[in-house]
C-alpha cells in the first residue's frame, strides 16, 4: 500500500512538472497573442511596409554582387539616371511601365545621339544633404570601372566607352560617351548599377587603400533615391526609411514614397512566407514556390500578381558538342517535348509554355518560329531517323542550384517525354550552381536545362549577352555571321524602329528553327501582396519601386 502511495507521489510530481511546463507555454502563448495582433495591425497600418524575402542582403555594395534582394534594396535607395515611363494601362492586373519610353530619373531631360547620351540633372538631394551633381555621376562610373565587376560588364554591354566614359559640361550637365553606336545605353541607364552615389559622403570614408570606400559601402548607402538604409544586418534584415530630401518627379508620374519605412526580413522558407503574408504579419513577398499559389488563392487577404519576367527555363544544346552538332537530333528532341505538360506538372500551370527565344516582355518577340509548339512524336521520329540516331544514351545535365527544384522536375519530365519518342537519356545532376554555370558556358555539357535572364529589357542586351556569337555567356556555341550582324543591328537601331524588329526576329528565327534551344516556360515575376497594400506596378526592369505603393 505504502509502495503504491509513493509511486503515485512520483507520478503526481511528474505530471505536475508537465502541467507546469504546459502552463508556462500557455502563459507565453497568451501574452504572445496580442503581439501577433499588433504585428498584423502594424503591417496593415500603412507606415511600415514589411517585405519578406527568400534571401537576405549580404552587402550594400552593389559591386559585391549578392542576391536579388540586394538589387531590390539598391533599386529603392538609388535614383536611376532614367526611369521606364509609368503607364496607366493595366496588364496582368496592375499598371506597367513602358519598355521603350523613358523619363527622369536623375536626368530632368536628356538627348541621345546614338554615340553620346547628354543629361541635364534634376534637383536631387541625398539624405546627407548633398545635392546631386555631374561629379557624382563621374565618381560612380569611375567606381564601376575601378572595381571591375558587375557594373563594368553593364557598361561594356551598353557600349559605354570605359576609357573616357563621361564628359562634364557643368555641375548639372554631362555626357556619357559610347565607344560605338549603341541604343542599349538608354534602357541600360534605368538599371540600378548606374544609380549615382553621393560622392561627397562616400569620399569621407575613403582611405588611400580603399579610394572608393568599399568597406564603408558594404554596410552603408549614400545615394539620391526615395529611401535610405537605417539598419542593416547582413543576410537577415534591412530597414529603409524615407529620404526626407527626396521630391520625386511628379510631372512624370514619379511620386515621393508613402510608406515611411520598409522593413526587409529574410524568411527562407516558402511556407513560412506564405503564412506571414496570409496572416497579415507581412505585406509583400516575391519568388514564392509555384506549388504554394493554389493554397494562397484560398487566402482572402492576399492578391497574387504574375508579371512576365525576362527569364526562361530553357533546354540548351551546345552545337559544338557531339552529337548535338546534328540539327536533326536537336529538332527531334524539340518536337518530343511537351511544354504544356511541363507547365502543368512542374509549375502548376502558373508559368505558361514558352514558344519564343525570350519572354514576350521584350519588344519584338515572336512565337512564330517554334518548330513544334505542341509535341509531335511522328515528326520527332522523322527527324531522329534523318539524324541517324542509333539509340545511344544522351546526357541531360541540370542543377537545382541554377533554378531550384523545378530544374530536377523539368529534367525528369523531359527524360520521360523523350523516351516516348525513342530517345534515351541519362540525367546528370550538378548540385553546385556556380560549377554548373561554368560547365554550361564552357561547352562541358551538350544538353542541359538552364535558366537565363537579362537585366535590361532589350533584345540587344538579352540576345547579345546570352546568345551573341562572341559572348562569353553563349552556352549554345552557336554563332553565324548572320547572328553577329543581327546583334550589331540590334545595338545600332532605335528600339522602336522596324529595323530593330527585323533584326530581333531574324535572330530568333535562326535559334528557334535550328532548334539551338528549346524554351520551356515563361518564368513569371510573382509578387504576392497583402490586400492592405495598393499601388503595385510592374516595371520592365523587373525590380519594383516601393515608392508607388500606398496603404489601401
Amino acid at each position, binding site marked *: 500500500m505504502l509502495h503504491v502511495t*509513493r*509511486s503515485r*507521489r*512520483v*507520478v503526481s510530481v511528474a505530471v505536475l512538472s*508537465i502541467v507546469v*511546463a504546459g502552463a508556462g*507555454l500557455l502563459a*507565453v*502563448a*497568451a*501574452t*504572445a*497573442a496580442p*503581439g*501577433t495582433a499588433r*504585428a498584423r495591425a*502594424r503591417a496593415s497600418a500603412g507606415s*511600415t511596409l514589411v517585405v519578406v524575402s527568400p*534571401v*537576405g542582403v*549580404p*552587402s550594400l*555594395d552593389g559591386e*559585391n*554582387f549578392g542576391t536579388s534582394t540586394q538589387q531590390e534594396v539598391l533599386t529603392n535607395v538609388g535614383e536611376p539616371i532614367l526611369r521606364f515611363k509609368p503607364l496607366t494601362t493595366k496588364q496582368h492586373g496592375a499598371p506597367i511601365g513602358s519598355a521603350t519610353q523613358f523619363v527622369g530619373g536623375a536626368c530632368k531631360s536628356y538627348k541621345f545621339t546614338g554615340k553620346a547620351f547628354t543629361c541635364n540633372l534634376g534637383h536631387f538631394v541625398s539624405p546627407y544633404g548633398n545635392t546631386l551633381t555631374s561629379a557624382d555621376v563621374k565618381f560612380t562610373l569611375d567606381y564601376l570601372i575601378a572595381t*571591375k*565587376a*558587375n557594373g*563594368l*560588364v553593364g557598361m*561594356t554591354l551598353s557600349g559605354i566607352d570605359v576609357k573616357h566614359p563621361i564628359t562634364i559640361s557643368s555641375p548639372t550637365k554631362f555626357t556619357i560617351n559610347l565607344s560605338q553606336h549603341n541604343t542599349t545605353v538608354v534602357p541600360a541607364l534605368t538599371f540600378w548599377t548606374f544609380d549615382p552615389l553621393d560622392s561627397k559622403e562616400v569620399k569621407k570614408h575613403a582611405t588611400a587603400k580603399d579610394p572608393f570606400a*568599399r*568597406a564603408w559601402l*558594404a554596410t552603408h548607402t549614400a545615394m539620391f533615391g526615395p529611401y535610405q538604409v537605417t539598419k542593416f544586418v*547582413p543576410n*537577415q534584415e534591412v530597414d529603409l526609411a524615407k529620404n526626407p530630401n527626396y521630391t520625386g518627379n511628379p510631372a512624370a508620374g514619379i511620386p515621393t514614397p508613402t510608406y515611411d519605412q520598409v522593413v526587409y*526580413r*529574410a*524568411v*527562407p*522558407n516558402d*511556407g*513560412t512566407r506564405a*503564412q*506571414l503574408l*496570409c*496572416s497579415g*504579419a*507581412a505585406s509583400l513577398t516575391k519568388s514564392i514556390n509555384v506549388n504554394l499559389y493554389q493554397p494562397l488563392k484560398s487566402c482572402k487577404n492576399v492578391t497574387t500578381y504574375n508579371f512576365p519576367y525576362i527569364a526562361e527555363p530553357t533546354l540548351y544544346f551546345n552545337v559544338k558538342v557531339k552529337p548535338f552538332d546534328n540539327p536533326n537530333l536537336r529538332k527531334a528532341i524539340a518536337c518530343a517535348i511537351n511544354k504544356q505538360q511541363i507547365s502543368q506538372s512542374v509549375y502548376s500551370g502558373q508559368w505558361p509554355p514558352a514558344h519564343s527565344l525570350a519572354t514576350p516582355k521584350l519588344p519584338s518577340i515572336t512565337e512564330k518560329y517554334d518548330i513544334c509548339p505542341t509535341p509531335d512524336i511522328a515528326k520527332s521520329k522523322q527527324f531522329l531517323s534523318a539524324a541517324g540516331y542509333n539509340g545511344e544514351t544522351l546526357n541531360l545535365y541540370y542543377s537545382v542550384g541554377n533554378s531550384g527544384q523545378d530544374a530536377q522536375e523539368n529534367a525528369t519530365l523531359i527524360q520521360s517525354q523523350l523516351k516516348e519518342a525513342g530517345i534515351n537519356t541519362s540525367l546528370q545532376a550538378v*548540385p*553546385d550552381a*556556380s*560549377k*554548373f*554555370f561554368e560547365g554550361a558556358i564552357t561547352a562541358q555539357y551538350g544538353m542541359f536545362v538552364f535558366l537565363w*535572364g537579362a*537585366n535590361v529589357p532589350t533584345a540587344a542586351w538579352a540576345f547579345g549577352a546570352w546568345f551573341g556569337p562572341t559572348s*562569353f*555567356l553563349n552556352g549554345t556555341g552557336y554563332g553565324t555571321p548572320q547572328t553577329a550582324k543581327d546583334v550589331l543591328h540590334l545595338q545600332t537601331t532605335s528600339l522602336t524602329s522596324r529595323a530593330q524588329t527585323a533584326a530581333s526576329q531574324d535572330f530568333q528565327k535562326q535559334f528557334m528553327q535550328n532548334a539551338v534551344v528549346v524554351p520551356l516556360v515563361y518564368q513569371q515575376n510573382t509578387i504576392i501582396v497583402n490586400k492592405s497594400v495598393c499601388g503595385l506596378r510592374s516595371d520592365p526592369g523587373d525590380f519594383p519601386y516601393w515608392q508607388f505603393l500606398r496603404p489601401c
Partner: protein
Amino acid sequence: MAAVAPSGSTATLSIHRLAPPWVRRWARIIGRRLLFFLITLWLVLTLTWLLTRVVGGNPAFKLAGPTPTPEVVHGIEVKLGLDKPLFTQYVDYLGNLARGRLGTDYFTSQSVGQEVVDRAPATLQLVAFGGLLALLFGLVLGVLSALRRGKPVDHAGRVVSVLALATPDFFLGLLLAYLLFYKLHVFPAPIGQLPVGTAPPTKITSFYLLDGILSGNPGASWAFLKQMFLPALTLGLIYMAPILRLTRASMLDSLASDSVLYAQACGLRRSLVVRYALRQSMTLVVTFLGILIAALIGGDVLVEQVYSWGGLGQFGVEAVVNDNYPAIQAFVLIVGVLALVVYTIVDIVYTLIDPRVRLS
C-alpha cells in the same frame, strides 16, 4: 649515466612522482582527450576544406554578377586568392587559423569570425532552451513510462516518441507555426528573433535574453522569449523522443537490477529506490546528452530556416549555398569545436558518475 638526463625531464619526473596518483590519472585522462580533440578537429577541418574545394563550385562566378566575363571572374579569383595552387591555399588557411583569423566573408566583406560571434548567441539560446524542453519532456515521460509500464501512460509515451522520431524537424516546425501562429494566433509571427518594430536591447553579452534584463529593457527579452518559443518547442518535441525511450529502457533495466531489487528487499522507501534506479540509469542518459547537444546544433539548422532565426544554422546554409568557403570553414570549426567540447565533458562526467569507467 642515468644521472645526466636533461634537467627538464628530471623536473617533469619529479612532479610526476610528487603528484598524488589521482592527479596523475586525471592528467593522463584529460591529456589523452585533448590530443584526441585536436587530431579530430584537424581531420574535420582538413576534410571540409578539401570537400568544399573539390565538390564546391567557384564563388567568383556568383560574385561576378548576372553576366560574368572571364576577366571579371579572374579578377575576383585573384582578389580572393582562389587563383593560387590548392596546397598554398591550404597552408594559408591553416596559418591564418593558427593566428586566430577565420578569413573574410566573400559576400558580406565582413570578418567571418565576427559574423560567427554575432550569430552564435541566437543559436546557443535556442539550442539551450530547446534542449531544456527536450530534457524536461523526455525525462519526465521516460520515468513515468517505466514506472507505469504497460499502462496507458506508457503506451502514450511510446506513441508520442515514435511520432516525434518519425517527424522531420522542419515539417514539425511548419506544422506548429501553422497551428499555433497562423490558425490559433497564440504565438507571434515566425519572422526572426524579434518582431518587426521591436528594437534589440543594448548589446552587453550579445544574448538578447540577458541583455534585455541587464540593460533595463525587459520588454525586449520578453519579446525575444516569445519569438523563441515555437522554434524551441519544435526542437524540444523532436529531441524529447530519444531521451524518453532511453530513459524508459534504462530505468526499466535499473529497476530490475540486483542492487535495486536488494534495496527493495531491504524495505527501503519506494522514493529512495526510485532515486537509486534513476541514478543508475543516468549514466546512459548523460552519455546521450552529449550526442543530443551535438544533434541539436545540427537539427537546429533546418528549424532556423523555418523560423527565419538568423543564427549559426542559417549562416551555415547560406554559406554552403553560396560556396562561401571561409564561412563554411568557420561554421564547421565552431560546430566541430562545440561538439568535441561537449563530448569531452561528457567523457569526463561519465568517469565521475560511473566508477567502473574510471577503473578501466
